[in-house]
């Protein structure tokens, strides 16, 4: 019972920290938007600005509540957000929640899959590299990882497009479905064909870190006394890799994967731009260019929620693996 209480207390404390963190993020992003020289009304009107008089501009500003003090604006926004209304996106002329739902799904398909695949592939490569430390498979994998880590994601995407889509014609050039076809008429096959290239690029982007991380852990395990004992008892390398290395390296790799959530989301913004993928990353760029403050704030909050949860999970996993860390922090 006492243990339960402590667990509940800790969960509550983590929840409070999470709420505080999101509030600070919201405040910071709002302050950044307010400090921006980009005027939302001007950005919204664009070229039409020339035909709109100052009175109409003032009317739009008043309708959006821009004539109120920044504090009032923020409180009104926060209050609406708590009732589930995240505002109206000026860039897409739709409720922010609707934009988030549509684009979030597309992003989840691309980024989520790339995240999971890069974890699996990275782990497998790390196992192979660790098991063959110093020999050629290890050298090749390591070199490949270093190269990948230094490669600009969007450049890799452009190269993939130029080679596979333009020259070879194996993959479509852009978007999440054939151009001109409404999204609900795209067949699963077409969807997959359009997903393949961006997914491959984004997966490669995330692999390097996990592979190098896993490799280090595997080398550590293989040098341990219990592996020596297992060898002495006649266990073969596959057996040792599966029963000792993979098990011991699994949790650290998972923790590293959770900690890398932010990185892959950042990479997805660039990948979505290159492949014209209709996800949140592209929406972020669009919102930034058009001064769409409500959409930018919602995306920032959602991303912060996902990334900080990832960081939190990574921390929790690390503590679970090594209880000494609990005392240290």
């Amino acid at each position: 019972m006492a243990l339960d209480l402590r667990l509940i207390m800790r969960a509550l404390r983590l929840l409070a920290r999470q709420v505080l963190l999101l509030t600070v993020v919201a405040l910071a992003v709002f302050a950044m938007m307010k400090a921006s020289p980009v005027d939302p009304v001007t950005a919204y009107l664009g070229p039409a600005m020339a035909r709109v008089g100052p009175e109409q501009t003032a009317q739009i500003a008043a309708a959006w509540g821009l004539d109120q003090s920044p504090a009032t604006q923020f409180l009104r926004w926060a209050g609406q957000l708590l009732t589930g209304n995240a505002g109206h996106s000026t860039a897409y002329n739709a409720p922010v929640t609707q934009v988030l739902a549509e684009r979030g799904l597309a992003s989840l398909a691309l980024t989520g899959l790339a995240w999971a695949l890069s974890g699996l592939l990275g782990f497998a490569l790390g196992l192979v590299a660790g098991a063959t430390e110093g020999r050629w498979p290890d050298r090749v994998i390591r070199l490949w990882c270093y190269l990948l880590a230094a490669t600009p994601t969007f450049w890799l995407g452009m190269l993939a497009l130029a080679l596979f889509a333009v020259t070879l014609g194996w993959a479509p050039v852009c978007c999440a479905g054939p151009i001109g076809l409404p999204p609900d008429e795209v067949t699963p096959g077409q969807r997959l064909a359009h997903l393949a290239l961006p997914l491959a690029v984004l997966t490669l982007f995330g692999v390097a870190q996990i592979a190098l991380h896993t490799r280090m852990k595997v080398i550590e395990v293989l040098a341990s006394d219990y592996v020596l004992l297992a060898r002495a008892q006649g266990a073969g390398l596959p057996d040792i890799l599966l029963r000792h290395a993979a098990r011991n390296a699994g949790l650290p790799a998972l923790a590293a994967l959770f900690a890398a959530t932010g990185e892959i989301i950042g990479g997805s913004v660039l990948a979505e731009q290159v492949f014209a993928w209709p996800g949140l990353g592209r929406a972020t760029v669009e919102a930034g260019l058009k001064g769409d403050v409500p959409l930018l704030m919602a995306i920032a909050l959602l991303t912060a929620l996902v990334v900080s949860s990832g960081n939190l999970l990574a921390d929790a996993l690390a503590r679970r693996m090594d209880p000494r860390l609990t005392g240290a922090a």
Partner: protein
Amino acid sequence: MTGRLRLIAAAGLAAALILAVALASWGLGARGIAADFGARLLPPSPAHPFGTDHMGRDLLARSLHGLALSLRVGLAAAGLSALIAVAVTGLAGLGRRADAVAGFVTDVMLALPHLLLLLLLSFMLGGGTAAVILAIAVSHWPRLARILRGELRQVMAMPYVETSRALGRPRRFVLVHHVLPHLAPQLLVGVLLMFPHAILHEAGLTFLGFGLDPSRPATGVMLAEAMRHLGAGRWWLAVFPGAMLLALVLAFDLLGGSLRRLLSPAEVRL
């Protein structure tokens, strides 16, 4: 190759690259910036080893200009970012409460991916070179600060620091005379490893249209322009500027990595 040899090789490579870029961009003058509409979109040839772009500008010269720009922006941003990291770590070293605040701020910064944070900061600052440098500096310090914070805790627990404090030295004296020299190698490695990161993020941000001014010969600008010609099979527009950027990033990754290996061989087994 021994670690020392590798370090010297990496340092030589990085220095040669910097020198080449600096000399080239200085000696090139207007080459690669002035338009020549008689030579539009030429594929690679002996006269233009990297080909020419849609305004007939030599891509090799342009790529070199771009790297020089990246170097300058990256150096300024990484240096500024390291200063912030040191300042935050120093503040955190002053007391328990300051440490908690610094830790929370770091967590908040880490909750937003670099690229998104850069985008928001660039939106706030209105774009341009100074804005990009400032945005990269403001977004990249938390990781270094985290490493420095860990080191700080270790040093503060060392006997000589305890002795010094027992002798009545004020906390600030301990920070400046004991902790800072101890952190210096970590700091150097941190800056060196942050530098390629900063360059990559600058290019990405510029590519998205939030970074350097599109009229400047930045790698991100070149690649964004190349995007429009990709469908027409003009691959050289994308391949060469990106490959040059990759070479620069790789050289600094190598330099930072081998320096770290030399300074703390036990910690890093890569």
